[in-house]
């Protein structure tokens, strides 16, 4: 009978007993990237280097290539899937029944989005795969926001399949990179409060600002924002950080806003939404 092994990762999670052939296949598929200790009996674990036959399998150059190939393949599949869902309804994508409850929608959403959550990707995920996952995460999140909107609407007792997300022409933002800080300039026309209201989860009420841009900024990127308001002499100047990437832009959290600045925003939003 061939030898069997137990593998433990950095969080002391154990897989085993499995044979060398299975280990080789898993490694080639990029699924054993964090093996820290190994065992022949499931009880006494030793560092990987003390079992040369396993170390050879888990560090073989071909495995690294295969791992990268696996990520390329995963990237390709995600991109294909993203293209395929463009014309599908949210109900088709989430595979929920016509009369599904909000909880069922949410369960379906979490089941789908789980694998794409950027913060849960392994550290050695390739940039291409990371971007594909981020795009999938954003696409699903956008659909789910639409679903939640449908349920919030008092006139809608049963949620029809939400429409495709549409990106309205947004207020143009000017971006410039200087010394690691992204400077953002916004000129708002009278009646346009979308940067303060477009992101429903993070609006002006939580000192947030949505910036429409094709540029992809990493969360936590420091920013300096200058907003001019048509018909107003006063401009808004604030520093902040990118807090979330959205489809067609990103959301910035403005830091250390003064009460006078908040009042300026509040007044602008109120005038824009009551005209």
């Amino acid at each position, binding site marked *: 009978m061939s030898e069997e092994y137990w593998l433990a990762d950095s969080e002391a999670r154990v897989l085993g007993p499995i044979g060398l*052939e299975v280990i080789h296949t898993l490694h080639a598929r990029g699924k054993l990237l964090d093996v820290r200790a190994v065992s022949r009996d499931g009880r006494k674990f030793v560092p990987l280097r003390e079992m040369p036959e396993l170390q050879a399998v888990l560090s073989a150059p071909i495995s690294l290539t295969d791992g990268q190939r696996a990520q390329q393949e995963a990237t390709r599949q995600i991109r294909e899937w993203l293209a395929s869902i463009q014309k599908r309804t949210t109900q088709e994508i989430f595979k929920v029944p016509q009369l599904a409850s909000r909880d069922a929608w949410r369960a379906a959403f979490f089941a789908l989005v789980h694998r794409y959550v950027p913060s849960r990707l392994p550290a050695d995920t390739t940039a291409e795969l990371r971007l594909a996952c981020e795009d999938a995460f954003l696409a699903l999140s956008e659909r789910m926001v639409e679903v939640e909107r449908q349920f919030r609407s008092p006139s809608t007792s049963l949620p029809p399949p939400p429409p495709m997300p549409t990106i309205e022409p947004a207020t143009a933002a000017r971006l410039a990179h200087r010394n690691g800080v992204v400077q953002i300039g916004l000129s708002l026309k009278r009646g346009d409060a979308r940067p303060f209201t477009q992101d429903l989860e993070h609006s002006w009420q939580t000192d947030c600002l949505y910036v429409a841009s094709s540029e992809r900024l990493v969360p936590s990127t420091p920013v300096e924002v200058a907003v001019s308001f048509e018909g107003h002499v006063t401009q808004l100047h604030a520093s902040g950080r990118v807090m979330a990437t959205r489809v067609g832009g990103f959301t910035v959290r403005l830091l250390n806003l003064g009460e006078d600045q908040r009042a300026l925003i509040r007044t602008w939003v109120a005038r824009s939404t009551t005209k």
Partner: protein
Amino acid sequence: MALPEVLIVDDDQLIRTMVRDALIDVPCEIREADSGDSALAAIAQRNPAVVLLDLVMPGKSGLEVLKLLKGKPTRVVVLSALDTEGLVQQAMADGAHGFLSKPIHPLDVQSLVRGALEAAASP
């Protein structure tokens, strides 16, 4: 009549919650365990009809738990992202009723658990 029990075994709280949510329409009583050892204790105590079992966990691994349950009436559905052919074959040879690849889909979970519950009810 008491509802059959389903035990969700995974060290990831999010997965346990997702599976629990997926089974909301399945008539069963759901319990959770976050390791192989706590799963074995729960199985010894409650004798669940179905166990949904992760393979990679702290302490006893899912494959070890599966081997210990072989021949018992409890039906085991494996949940794992390690869905290579060799490992799926090994799990099935060790007595798994089914194998579900992560990321899981609620309808797949429901379908497999319903089938496992039916199998457990008519051995």
